[in-house]
């Protein structure tokens, strides 16, 4: 009886709600909002012009103007990147010197003194330690420079204006203007760029930003691009032009990355992401003087160290794998040599080679160790007399010596160009993959984000290789 009564009441309420109609609910909420606004207006006092300082409005007029808006933007981004790449050189080589040239030999001799068997010290010191040391030396300085600068701009209030200026471009590819910021952040580190997509509150646009962040050339890849461009592309033009042309080539690759970012964003928003909810709004907060030390502190702790820690966690096992595949033999070939030979055919189709493909597989944890791995593997299969032995990654101090090793490995201009393209278009590093999983909480999107760029990379390098061979 009682249950019956309740059912009846529910039925009645549903009936009444239906009779009131659809707009009732909306009208009710909206009038609550409006009432709240009225009450605020009557009771809350504020200094009226506080927000629109004359200075604020002036800055806004300039940074969003037709004439100066874009040049200012490119100038600032260019400066930040240049400072990062140039400024990181010195501390990087200092760290490399300390970790690789002083501590590494010391550890080796210490291990020998303890009477460690060769495989244990190889596995731990040449494998695990070296990979971790390498990642720290190459990754830490640029991040420690890039993130604080970026965070200062953010804190000042400039970055939302960039999103404001560029939104129309991103809108065309179904994305959010704030993706300009996560993309720029990706130039520092893709994992940090993926975390930064939290500022985009529309679900669809956020996913797009996450899935395409990898097309921003990150800190780990800039050195590769610069090295290869200097060796191979700078060499085809007269000496006086070579540094300019190789710089141009690197910028070209970065711009190509942006083109892919727009194209893929467009494709995703038209296909798989069509049904996701999309809302847009962008708040332009007032400018304020950045809190310098606090910003430096938080960006070092929150961004740099967290990302670095994740990278180390992934790099350690990668170092172990690199050492193991070069030192475990099946028959009379090491696993590495065997894998290289079996991938050579496919590599040739892509205008690359087996060494590069294997290096990209084992160096998934960090793009920073791709070049050392390539050098080590090239020496392993060609038997050129440099380097430190099987499974020990190394880099050479002189660019010419590096060029000699690579040329001994059969590299041509085509290999170099395609390596640069593949370095742009391949799976994100494992730190980024893990971060994407953390942020999206979805295996599906993590897989898409990881596999799609590799497939694009295969297609692009394949096409370039075939056209190249047809023309030359």
């Amino acid at each position, binding site marked *: 009886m009682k249950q019956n009564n309740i059912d009846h009441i529910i039925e009645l309420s*549903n009936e009444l*709600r*239906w009779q009131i*109609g*659809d*707009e009732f*609910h*909306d009208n009710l*909420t*909206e*009038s609550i*909002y*409006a009432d709240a*606004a*009225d009450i605020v207006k009557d009771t809350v006092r*504020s200094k009226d012009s*506080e*927000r*629109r300082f004359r200075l604020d409005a002036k800055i*806004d*007029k300039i940074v*969003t*103007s*037709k004439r100066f*808006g*874009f040049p200012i933007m490119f100038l600032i981004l260019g400066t930040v990147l240049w400072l990062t790449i140039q400024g990181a050189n010195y501390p990087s080589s200092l760290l490399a010197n300390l970790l690789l040239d002083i501590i590494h030999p010391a550890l080796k001799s210490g291990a020998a003194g303890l009477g460690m068997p060769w495989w244990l010290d190889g596995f731990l010191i040449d494998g695990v330690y070296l990979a971790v040391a390498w990642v720290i030396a190459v990754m830490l300085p640029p991040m420690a420079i890039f993130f604080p600068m970026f965070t200062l701009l953010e804190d000042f209030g400039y970055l939302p204006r960039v999103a*404001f*200026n*560029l*939104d*129309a*471009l991103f*809108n065309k590819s179904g994305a959010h*203007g704030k993706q300009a910021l996560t993309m720029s952040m990706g130039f520092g580190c893709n994992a940090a760029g993926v975390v930064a997509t939290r500022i985009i509150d529309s*679900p*669809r646009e956020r996913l797009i930003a996450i899935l395409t962040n990898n097309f921003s050339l990150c800190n780990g890849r800039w050195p590769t691009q610069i090295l290869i461009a200097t060796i191979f592309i700078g060499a085809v033009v007269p000496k006086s032009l070579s540094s300019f042309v190789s710089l141009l080539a690197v910028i070209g690759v970065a711009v190509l990355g942006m083109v892919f970012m727009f194209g893929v964003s467009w494709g995703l928003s038209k*296909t798989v992401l*069509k*049904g*996701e*909810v*999309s*809302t*847009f*709004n*962008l*708040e*332009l*907060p007032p400018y304020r003087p950045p809190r310098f030390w606090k910003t430096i502190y938080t960006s070092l702790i929150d961004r740099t160290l967290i990302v670095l820690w994740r990278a180390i966690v992934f790099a350690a096992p990668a170092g172990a794998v690199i050492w193991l595949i070069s030192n475990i033999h099946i028959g009379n070939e090491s696993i590495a040599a065997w894998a290289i030979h079996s991938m050579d*055919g496919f590599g*040739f*189709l892509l205008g690359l080679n087996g060494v590069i493909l294997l290096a990209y597989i084992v160096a998934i944890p960090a793009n920073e160790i791709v070049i050392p791995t390539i050098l080590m593997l090239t020496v392993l299969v060609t038997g050129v007399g440099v380097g430190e032995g099987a499974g020990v990654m190394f880099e050479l101090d002189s660019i010419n010596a590096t060029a000699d090793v690579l040329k001994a490995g059969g590299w041509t201009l085509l290999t170099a160009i395609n390596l640069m393209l593949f370095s742009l278009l391949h799976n994100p590093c494992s730190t980024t993959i893990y971060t994407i999983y953390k942020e999206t909480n979805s295996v599906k999107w993590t897989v898409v984000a990881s596999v799609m760029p590799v497939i694009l990379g295969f297609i692009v390098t*394949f*096409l370039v*290789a*075939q*056209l190249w*061979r*047809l023309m030359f």
Partner: protein
Amino acid sequence: MHTYNPISALLVFFSIGALLYFLFRPSKGWYWILKNQLTSNEKTIIEDVLKQLYHFENSNNKVDMKTLVHMLSFSNKKIVDAINIMTVNNLIYFESDILKLTEKGREYALRIVRVHRLWERYLAEKTGFHKIEWHDRAESMEHRLNHDEVEELSRHLGHPKFDPHGDPIPTKTGKMAQVKGVELPLLQVGAMGRITHIEDEPEVIYKQILAENIHIGSLIKVVENNVTRIVFLSEGEEFKLAPIVAANLTVAPLEKEILVEDNVTRLSSLTENETAKIIGISRESRGESRRRLLDLGFVKGAQVSIDLVNPLGEPNAYLIKGTSIALRNDQAAKILIKKD
């Protein structure tokens, strides 16, 4: 690699690419066609036939076998089979050549219509699919939901009365609200009214209406009405439609006593140095985006002006409640204002 040559490699590549394209291209891909063929079973056909009959009977049209076969994209044999089953199960009967719904058939049809419209409402409020896709997606979904799922969906949406085009959604018990109003071409010059329904079929015409940026729930005033075109004003803009297009809009004429806010325009038409007061948000802005706008302070009575003009045209930044908020033009078009 002695068989390798770049041209054959490219040929292989492009033929694989072409194959994938033909297999998976949107809607016309062989894979999708095949999948549709396999899943379009008896139930789908029966339900589609019922729905067609329902709509025809509602508009007082008569249907024979020939028209039916013409209307539906299934093979003749499948339709005939389905018709036989439906007659046996007492869903339809023949009156000489004409097909008619029985009471039971009518109930069934109404249930399908209910699912279809509920699903359109769901797509409009909870997903980001474009309006143009709502109909087709609802069309395939209506065969898939069972009774309990439909109830759950309806509850989730707050038992809505109308779908996003303004069509009434039948309740569980088959009750339906009335759409108020007449087709737009029937209004006299000078008449005012509110758009209560936008028909989404046929698609060609619906696309034109969408391209015009006409919003459901807007007030309109007819300024010209003849055989070649109908011109009306709405929200500060002028719209010109061919009568055949205008016939797909249903407009409820306003009773004289209702006080009408005049000079209502869209926020997108605000220019620099003008200020305005917000009148409300159009019904076209739904779900999450509507809530977001309210959260940001775009509520009735609020003062708004342009803070910054975008170098690329959009989004412009609006100053509202002391904060600068950038909105894209299509969003600003759904906020109604009255200029000071």
